[in-house]
C-alpha cells in the first residue's frame, strides 16, 4: 500500500505578500486575522477588511524583546527567566507607490493633494482646494452618484477623495481609517478629505455619477460625504502622528503550505525613506526601481484567551499530506 504522507522540508517561498487593515484608533481596536477560519483565502482576494498591498521584499523581523535571568544560590545560577521588555520591529520594501503604501512607509500623516481652486495661492501641502461636490444617496463603494452638473466636473482617469466636511472636531479624523490626529480645531473645511484614505481612480463618468476602478476602502459613502478631485499625494518629514494598522504577511511554500505573520498593531516608526534598486544587476545602468522602505514597531494586544500581552501571531498551515 502506497504511503499517503510525506516528510515536508522547510517551506520554499518565492516572496512575501502583505495585507493591511485599519485599526480603529478611537476605540483602539485592531483587526484580527483567524488562520483557522480564513487561512485558505485566495492571495488575490483577501477577506474584508484586509487590503492587499501586493508583493513586498526585504521582509525582516527584528525581535527586540529582552529577557533577564532570576539568579539564586552561591555561586549564582539561573533559576528562571523573566521577560523584561516586549518589542519587535518589522521592516520591508513596498514594490508599488500607492496612497496606502506611501502612507504606511512614512512616519507621519499622509495627505492628498486636492485639486486647487482657480487662482489659489501656492502652499506646500496643496493650495486651497476647488469646492467639493455632494455625493447623493444610493452611492456604493464603486459607484458614486452625483448631480449631472457635478459629474461633468470629473473625467475618466481622475483620482478622487471622498469624505465628510471638517467641522472643527478634534482627535482622530477620517473614517474608517484615521488619517490624522487633530489637536486643536482647524479652519480648512476640506481637511478630512486631505487626510482621508477613501481615494480611488475614476474609470467612467456618466450623467448620473462616477464609476470607480477600485472600491473605496471605506465602503459606501456615509451621509454627508463630499467628493473632490486630487492630483497626487504629499507627506511631511516631522509631525506627531503615527500611522497604525493591523498587518498580515503571508509566505506560501512550494507545497501549498502557508506561514502567516499577524501583527494586530503595527505603527510606522521611521521617517519616509526610499531604496533604489538597479533594474539590471549585471550591468551598471542609470535605471533604478525606487521602492518605499517601511519600518514598523509592533505594539501589544492582550490575548483574551489567557490575558497574555503579545505583539505577533505566527501561524503555520502545513501542506496537504505532510507529516506534522
Amino acid at each position, binding site marked *: 500500500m*502506497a*504511503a*499517503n*504522507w*510525506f*516528510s*515536508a*522540508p*522547510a517551506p*520554499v517561498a*518565492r516572496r512575501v505578500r502583505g495585507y493591511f487593515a485599519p485599526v480603529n484608533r478611537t476605540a483602539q481596536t485592531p483587526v484580527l486575522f483567524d488562520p483557522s477560519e480564513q487561512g485558505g483565502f485566495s492571495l488575490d482576494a483577501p477577506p474584508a477588511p484586509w487590503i492587499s498591498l501586493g508583493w513586498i521584499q526585504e521582509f525582516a523581523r527584528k525581535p527586540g524583546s529582552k529577557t533577564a535571568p532570576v539568579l539564586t544560590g552561591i555561586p549564582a545560577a539561573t533559576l528562571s527567566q523573566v521577560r523584561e521588555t516586549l518589542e519587535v520591529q518589522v521592516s520591508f520594501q513596498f514594490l508599488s507607490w500607492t496612497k496606502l503604501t506611501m502612507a504606511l512607509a512614512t512616519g507621519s500623516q499622509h495627505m492628498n493633494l486636492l485639486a486647487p481652486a482657480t487662482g489659489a495661492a501656492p502652499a506646500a501641502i496643496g493650495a486651497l482646494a476647488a469646492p467639493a461636490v455632494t455625493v447623493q444617496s444610493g452611492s456604493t463603494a464603486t459607484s458614486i452618484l452625483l448631480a449631472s452638473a457635478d459629474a461633468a466636473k470629473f473625467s475618466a482617469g481622475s483620482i478622487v477623495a471622498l469624505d465628510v466636511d471638517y467641522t472643527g472636531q478634534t482627535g482622530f479624523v477620517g473614517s474608517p481609517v484615521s488619517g490624522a490626529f487633530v489637536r486643536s480645531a482647524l479652519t480648512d473645511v476640506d481637511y478630512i478629505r486631505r487626510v482621508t484614505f477613501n481615494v480611488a481612480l475614476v474609470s467612467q463618468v456618466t450623467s448620473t455619477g462616477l464609476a470607480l476602478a477600485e472600491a473605496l476602502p471605506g465602503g459606501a459613502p456615509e451621509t454627508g460625504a463630499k467628493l473632490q478631485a486630487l492630483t497626487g499625494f504629499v507627506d511631511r518629514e516631522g509631525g506627531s502622528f503615527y500611522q497604525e494598522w493591523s498587518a498580515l504577511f503571508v509566505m506560501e511554500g*512550494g*507545497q*501549498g503550505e502557508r506561514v502567516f505573520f499577524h501583527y494586530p498593531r503595527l505603527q510606522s516608526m521611521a521617517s519616509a525613506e526610499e531604496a533604489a534598486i538597479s533594474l539590471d544587476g549585471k550591468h551598471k545602468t542609470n535605471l533604478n526601481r525606487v521602492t518605499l522602505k517601511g519600518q514598523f514597531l509592533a505594539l501589544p494586544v492582550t490575548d483574551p484567551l489567557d490575558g497574555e500581552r503579545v505583539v505577533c501571531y505566527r501561524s503555520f498551515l502545513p*501542506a*496537504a*499530506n505532510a*507529516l506534522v
Partner: protein
Amino acid sequence: MALRTRLTTINPERTILLRGAVRPGILVEEAEAFFSPLPNDVFVLRWIGLGVDLDLGSTMVAEQCEIVYQTCGTQSFGGLDRGRSLSEMDEELAAMLQPFHTPKLNYTTTPPIAMLTQAFWDEPGFGPIAIQRDRLSRTANVTVYSYQEQGE
C-alpha cells in the same frame, strides 16, 4: 503535461502535427524521434541538469529545464512578422509557467496517479535571440524542483 494543458488554454491555435496526430505545440525532445532541425513555432523542452539535496526530510530534486523555441514568422506576412511571432511565444511561455507549481503526477501508470507533493519552479531566465538567416530562436531556462516521495 501541466504546461501542455496550460498552453491549450493560452493559445489553442499553437499545435503541431506529430506522429499523425495534432497536439498542443509543446513537446519533450527526448520523448520524440530525433528532430533536425527543430520544428518552428513549437516549444521544445530538454532536461539538461540535475541536482539533489539529500539533507532534508524528503530528498529534493532540482532539474534544469531548457525550453527552446524558434520561428520564421508567418507565410501570409512573408516572414516579416517573425519578431512579433517570437514575442508571442515569449509571452505564452511566461503565462504557461504561472502559477509556479503543479501537482506531481505519476505517469508510469495509466491513467496517471496524483502524488502527494507538488513540483514548483521560479521565474524563467530568457536568453538572447539567436538569428539564423530568417529564423529567430530563443532559449529559456527554468529550474524545476520536486520532492522524492516514498516508493520513487
